[in-house]
């Protein structure tokens, strides 16, 4: 039984210029006092092609966590543009928020992010080298993809085998902006084959 339930994540400062920091207001509930901190991470997927372009924007410890309902704002700097393949700068990608307890990830929240030029001129004729100052980042806040994992809350020992993958909106292509190519979208869930509806 998960001791921590994420109740809500509000995406703040959205849409915003590409260079602005990410801000997520996270509300979670804890069943009982946690002896150790929770570790939250924001991971920016630089390219759908390979995990090697994933950037951990920041990780933060959250604690102490007594039983109750809590909230905090997780702010992390924008991704290092130098690490993003130029071909992937514009278009749809993903930002992930993960939370681990005693080194075990128990929730992963994914958002699609659409980066595009606001200027119609640039949109028509994007420069070869992406102009990040002109890019706008739009996080599709209404469609978080939540994956939950059973972990061993009592100790950091071996991770429990069964995992529960909550994938509430099976119609993936429906949520994508029409402009993007479905094949390019990186997978959000870890184990899509295990995916099921919440019911």
């Amino acid at each position, binding site marked *: 039984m998960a001791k921590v339930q*994420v109740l809500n994540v509000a995406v703040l400062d959205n849409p915003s210029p590409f260079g602005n920091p990410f801000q997520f207001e996270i509300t979670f509930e804890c069943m009982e006092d946690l002896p150790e901190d929770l570790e939250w991470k924001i991971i920016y997927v630089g390219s759908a092609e390979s995990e090697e372009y994933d950037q951990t924007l920041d990780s933060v*410890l959250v604690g102490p*966590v007594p039983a109750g309902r809590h909230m*905090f704002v997780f702010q992390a700097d924008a991704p290092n543009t130098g690490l993003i393949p130029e071909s992937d700068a514009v278009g749809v990608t993903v930002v992930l928020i993960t939370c681990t307890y005693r080194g075990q990830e128990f929730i992963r929240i994914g958002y699609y992010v659409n980066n595009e030029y606001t200027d119609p001129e640039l949109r028509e004729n994007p420069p070869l080298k992406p102009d990040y100052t002109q890019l706008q980042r739009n996080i599709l806040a209404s469609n978080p993809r*939540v994956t939950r994992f059973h972990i061993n809350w009592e100790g950091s020992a071996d991770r429990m085998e069964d995992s*529960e993958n*909550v994938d*509430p*909106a099976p119609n993936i292509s429906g949520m994508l902006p029409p402009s993007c190519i479905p094949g390019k979208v990186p997978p959000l869930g870890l184990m899509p084959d295990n995916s099921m509806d919440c019911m």
Partner: protein
Amino acid sequence: MKLLKPSWVSHNGKPIFSVDIHPDGTKFATGGQGEDSGKVMIWNMAPVLREEDEKNENIPKMLCQMDNHLACVNCVRWSNNGLYLASGGDDKLVMVWKRAAFIGPSTVFGSSSKLANVEQWRCVTILRNHTGDVMDVAWSPHDVWLASCSVDNTIVIWNARKFPEMVTCLRGHTGLVKGLTWDPVGKYIASQADDHSLKVWRTMDWQLETNITKPFSECGGTTHVLRLSWSPDGQYLVSAHAMNNSGPTAQIVERDGWKTNMDFVGHRKAVTVVKFNPKIFKKKQKNGGSPKPSCPYCCCAVGSKDRSLSVWLTSLKRPLVVIHDLFDKSIMDISWTLTGLGILVCSMDGTVAYLDFSLDELGDPLNEEEKNTIHQNIYGKSLAITSTEAQLSTTIIENPEMLKYQQERQNAAQAGSGPGGAGLESTAPKLNSVMNGESLEDIRKNLLKKQVETRTADGRRRITPLCIAQLDTGDFSPALFNSVPILPGSSMPSQLTPQLSSDSSQGQASSLGLRPSHDTLLTSPPPSSSTKGLEDNKDGQSPTHVKQSLLLTSASKIEPMKALDSRFTERSKATPGVTAVISSTAGLTPLDSRAKDGSSILKDVKNKEETSSDSEDKMAAINKNLSFTKRKADLLMDGGEVVEKRKKGRPRKDKMATPISQPFTQVETEGPSRAAATPAPVAALKLPTPSIQKAFSLQVSMEPSVFLEVENDVSVVAGSKLSQLRCSRDGREWDTLLPSSVVTAAGSSDVIAVACEDRMLSVFSSCGRRLLPAIQLATPMSALHCSSHFVMALTAGARLSVWDVQKQTALVKNESLLTIMSGADTTVSQSLLTQQGVPVIGLSSGKSYCFNSSLETWTLIADKGDSLVQCADFRSCLPSHDAPVSSGPLAVMQGRNLNAGRLASRLSSTPHHLQQSMTLAFLENQLAAALTLLSAQEYRYWLLIYARFLVNEGSEYRLRELCKELLGPVHKSAATAWEPTTLGLRKRELLRELLPVIGQNLRFQRLFTEYQEQLELLRNK
């Protein structure tokens, strides 16, 4: 009869193993298999009952789902009060759920909106003990216990007031236990297992009452569950799967002699579940027909593996109705509505059916009163306490205010209101309180700026999350009241102080051994030489020896003392810092008993002490241990005025804890100390007196902090020795000189009193001004207390005086304790003075008296041996929110007695009417005691409990008299003796507080209306 299968009640096609309707009838729970876990779901009842509600999109159908069970849920059961839901599953766990009051509807984050949980139910406790699948759970009547049974062949009884405490584990079945049912009277619990037996266990001692095997011997095959049921009148127990002549039956077991002569026959396959209608019925009177008195009867539903359901009336030979092919698979569970007219049935095929009966079909349900009459007739006790709400559900509410209280009560009972979001308003304040009135929006705006962010040692960011709502984890807080075994007086050290002058209450961490010495209680005077020797050697004991002797003594204690002593020993070994507790417990313990037992070990103690070495620096550490031993020694000597020679200045501890303020420093004395040499006057009684020390100090008040220091013989002027009294109050000091040695001193924030060797009592103001001329006492001072502006003196001649320094009058004039100390060996074990100037004397006999100056008599306020205390059961009347008043003088004197009703928890050990009378008598005693102690807070506390008890028990006459007294005459008349206040509490305000309590029982609505209107009238005047 109407039949309905609400298709929307489903676990996505997975089996539903259990169903239970909430006592208030607004919702029901189902339990079964989830996707990859067990699943508990809570559903709204309204869409089942009414078609228009079913069609209304705005009325939620599913209220909450919980996936917390790791494996299939076999049973869900609501507690009788509707506050909790218990679920048991294949994951070997029992989970207890409670509605989270502060949370409104919310969606599961990341899921589509349709899955919104309208209500939030939170697992408040997980009960782990079973080593196999839990098959059935059942709440006892009154929700005292929760029972669970398992395929591990055991039944576990849990303490439902103190989860996760286990009361006992019933062993005896040799097969999977698959069903449980409590006797509605509370005397038994019955279980049925795969081992071809049905066992009935007594709740009194949790032993087997009977083991029924014959009807089950032929039972082959297995059913998933064997849910048996007890009839509401308690007379019949009906089993699940039994066999008669190779045919499956439900066996009827009579309570009287556990006879098994009858059964329900007709199902083609094994009976899985039997469920009695909670109502008892009588034949419906036909209009115009002659009202023939007919026997009341019960109604029972039987579900079977053959997928059919039969409903029986015990008055008919054939079933009322049999429904075949209701399901595709075996019936798993049945639940009746509390009205007795509706029934929900669930099946392994994952569907649920609802049957609606009419009164014409079943008959007229008896109201609770009639049901209670039946119980009363059969068992001599009624179950009125629990069932008032059900009983009155049909009564018409005549008064809007009454309606309000009824509704409030319902809301409170359900921790919010029924389905839908209406619960939000009532829960909003809770949320606000956490956030200091700031709205969530305000908080969110500034959260980033406001939140605390630090860096850990390794440079990582660490955010302290903002807590926006606390979990209501105090769910079982009523248990707090019972949880700590309250030892005599142990409630004292933590709280109080301001209320009392008794210093055993001052939770200072000073040790007992540092107290000014007092001679021990004595009824026969002088000491023997051997005791002197013992005394002389006291100073130099090494800790080990002391411990040994302590262990020795505790081992030789008589039984009732054991708990206390072992605790004491443990504590004193482990943590010397906890003496505050010990001092008071020790002080209040009647000591006589151990004198006899302890005498045999006198020599041991003595020997050890004599061989011990002087180790001055260790002394501080061992003082606590020491004091205990000394106490023993004092006692063994039968008191006696011990002359302390060769003293290093550590005074003997006073065994009676005549609560003189605790000294917190120790000053070295030199030379032989004097004996309290004043010859005892000719009196039948003699109380111990403190002996004189060279110097001592004590704290008399915490707020403001006042310290007293006394140094005797500071200087010799013209042949007479002077003593100095120094007082420091919040840092400011004053001192004064006295012509004689100070024996004892006491003080409050207002006055300081000192008693001298020459039997003079001097009283000073907090600034050092002498307030009274020196008072000459007839005999030496035994105990001196100050509280507020009162001074109490208890002299060695067993006479008591109390003065009001402000008014300069005597409240109690040299009153003899002879009246109360008539018993042979009675000694004073405690004395104190309340803030209101009421003197209280606790005796070793366990009785406590106070002197009522207006009645000019001694009045009994507490008696530890009082059997009423043991048997009074008013727990159901305890306020759920307020902590018990533990700081008042009454609570202090009664100590553990506040834990009343310990024995009463054995529900059926005393007949109900007897227990009722005992409780009533006890509560009235408490009220009278609080009144005579002038303890307003406690008076109010007990008055509310008393009123609640009267309301629950339906004692209208008493309740009416109480209201009348509180209301007083409505019209002013010259000759009225009615006082508008009692103990400074306005009586009509008290009545106003009582009204909501009265309003909770519909039976009293006339009374409620009457007094509510009169109060309104008076207010408008």
